[in-house]
């Protein structure tokens, strides 16, 4: 379904090699986040952790469509976006461990992952908090006549905050090169869509501002990638922002340790069998068992390496807390 963006007919075919790379990216994120859950439960990690298990195809599909100097802003569920945007998993895990080698040097934590050099303007623990910053970044690109796009990730829950509406209104009014990627996983933290959204088709939110929108199956990385390309091209060519609605599933709780009392007991189990984006892609490209095992081995080694890297990292001095308050 589209609201005025160029038809999907212009799709570019992705090679099996490229799709296999997407599979690897998604698997790295999956195994990384499972490791994060494991280390949190083991007591290694402090803080508040939110994993994106089940939503990897949105992060990878969108980020793989970006140009190197496009920028993103992420959410409290930030590991996937950050890794997909090019930050080494070592730097992300080291941040979880509060080390100076972390991508935010120990100042951020799981909900505040930054990598400005790679165009990650940071993840936000305020639902929707990063949206106007993306409008402003896109405005800067427009004023400087740079062919860059700014991309905001956020969830369905964020479409209920005032800032979402102010930001989309402003972005469309000024036709800035921004893409708003709504990861619609059906839950605002623990609250299901039926208790927080009076409409079913969230792309209507964009229609209200005269903004182009695309709706895509967020479990199909190729479809996400294709839609992201269309959205980015539209924005980059000066035609204004796009609302990209990716319908996805959170195959886990809101946070690590969430007992999920608000969900039917077998919902996650069932979704894991039918809506796992990694299984879907693996099947689609016909990954042989030995190919898969080889990939699993490689990713396992990488992820184990992140823990090793982080445990050997440098603890900040307590008084380092006073640095970086001001430039």
């Amino acid at each position: 379904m589209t609201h005025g963006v160029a038809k999907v007919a212009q799709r570019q075919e992705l090679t099996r090699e490229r799709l296999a790379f997407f599979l690897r990216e998604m698997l790295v994120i999956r195994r990384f986040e499972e490791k994060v859950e494991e280390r949190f439960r083991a007591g290694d990690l402090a803080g508040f952790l939110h994993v994106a298990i089940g939503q990897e195809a949105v992060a990878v599909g969108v980020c793989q469509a970006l140009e190197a100097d496009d920028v993103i802003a992420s959410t409290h569920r930030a590991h996937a976006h950050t890794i997909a945007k090019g930050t080494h998993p070592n730097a992300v895990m080291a941040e979880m461990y509060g080390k100076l080698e972390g991508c935010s040097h120990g100042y951020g934590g799981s909900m505040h992952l930054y990598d400005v050099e790679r165009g990650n303007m940071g993840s936000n623990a305020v639902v929707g908090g990063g949206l106007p910053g993306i409008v402003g970044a896109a405005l800067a690109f427009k004023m400087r006549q740079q062919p860059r796009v700014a991309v905001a990730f956020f969830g369905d829950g964020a479409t209920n905050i005032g800032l979402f509406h102010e930001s989309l209104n402003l972005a469309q009014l000024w036709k800035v090169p921004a893409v708003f990627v709504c990861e619609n996983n059906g839950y605002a933290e623990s609250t299901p869509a039926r208790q927080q959204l009076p409409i079913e088709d969230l792309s209507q939110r964009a229609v209200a501002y005269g903004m182009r929108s695309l709706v895509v199956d967020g479990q199909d990385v190729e479809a996400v990638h294709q839609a992201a390309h269309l959205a980015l091209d539209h924005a980059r060519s000066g035609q204004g922002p796009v609302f990209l609605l990716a319908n996805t599933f959170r195959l886990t709780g809101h946070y690590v340790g969430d007992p999920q009392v608000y969900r039917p007991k077998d919902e996650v189990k069932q979704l894991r069998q039918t809506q796992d984006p990694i299984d879907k892609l693996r099947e689609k490209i016909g990954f042989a068992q030995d190919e898969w095992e080889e990939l699993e081995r490689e990713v396992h080694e990488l992820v184990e390496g992140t823990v090793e890297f982080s445990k050997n990292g440098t603890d900040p001095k307590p008084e380092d807390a006073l640095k970086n308050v001001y430039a």
Partner: protein
Amino acid sequence: MRELTYREAVRDALSLAMRRDPDVFLMGEDIAEMGGSMGVTHGMLDEFGPERVRNTPISEMAIVGAGVGAAIQGMRPVVEIMYQDFSTLAAEQLVLQAAKHRYMSGGQMTIPLTVRTQGGAGWSPGAQHAQQLEAWFCHIPGLKVVFPSTPGDAHGLLWSSIYEDNPVVFFEHRTLYPMKGPVPDEVEALPLGKARVHREGTDCTVVATGRLVHVALAVADELAAEGVSLEVVDPRTLLPLDEETIVASVAKTHRCVVAHEAVTRHGFGAEVAAIVQEQAFDELDAPIGRVGARFCPLPFAPVMEQFVVPHEAEVMAAVRKTLERSV
């Protein structure tokens, strides 16, 4: 030296920065054709055009947030919040975003954003258009807070705020806009965090901000006729605060009164009093006096509004009380 009004001085500093630097631009409600609700940006649309003098929707959150995003990309946006009461709407973007991105990222970015706003009682708009909220923002590490009381200071401090690599909340006082004063022909950048001693004296220090600087100077004139010598210090920048100048003044006069238009309770004056007693307790010959608004919202009826905010009588009474106390 030219004679400019406070309003013209603000406009002139903005214009000089915009002539010199394409990265400087304005966003705000009614700032273009109308020239701002206080007329500060009058005529700037004609010179700089609608791309750089951006009329915005009534969206305080989004325009401050867009300023944050543009600033992170290296622009130097100046956002006008029409009344400082409405800074409460933008508070999330100021307090959780502008003030914290640099810190949360471990120092990966600078945020050269200036948010100008104004307020002040004396014209009976009621409870939502004239209060003084500068102390709120002084409580936020990562922000700088500037509050000039003269045209010259407004000029030099606004210039420095625009070229400051940290977010600055720049408070203007409504009743000062028509006030005339000397302004340098060329820009003379005034450092943030440096107080101005408006009048030297020996018997009591009055630390005053905004409109109350002029009230204190009037009181000083009156008391001079009685042979009492007041020293009037205007911090000009509330955060960071020039503690040294204030403490040195009290060490000379041995008495201190703090005066501002915002409510006294939990006010900026309380912080000044705490600093003075910590750093100059042995110098004090009397308890520190505090002058500010009474603890109620601003009422409409002019007779009530005049009662609530401080004037010469209140400053005079506080100074006399301090002077009468002997060790």
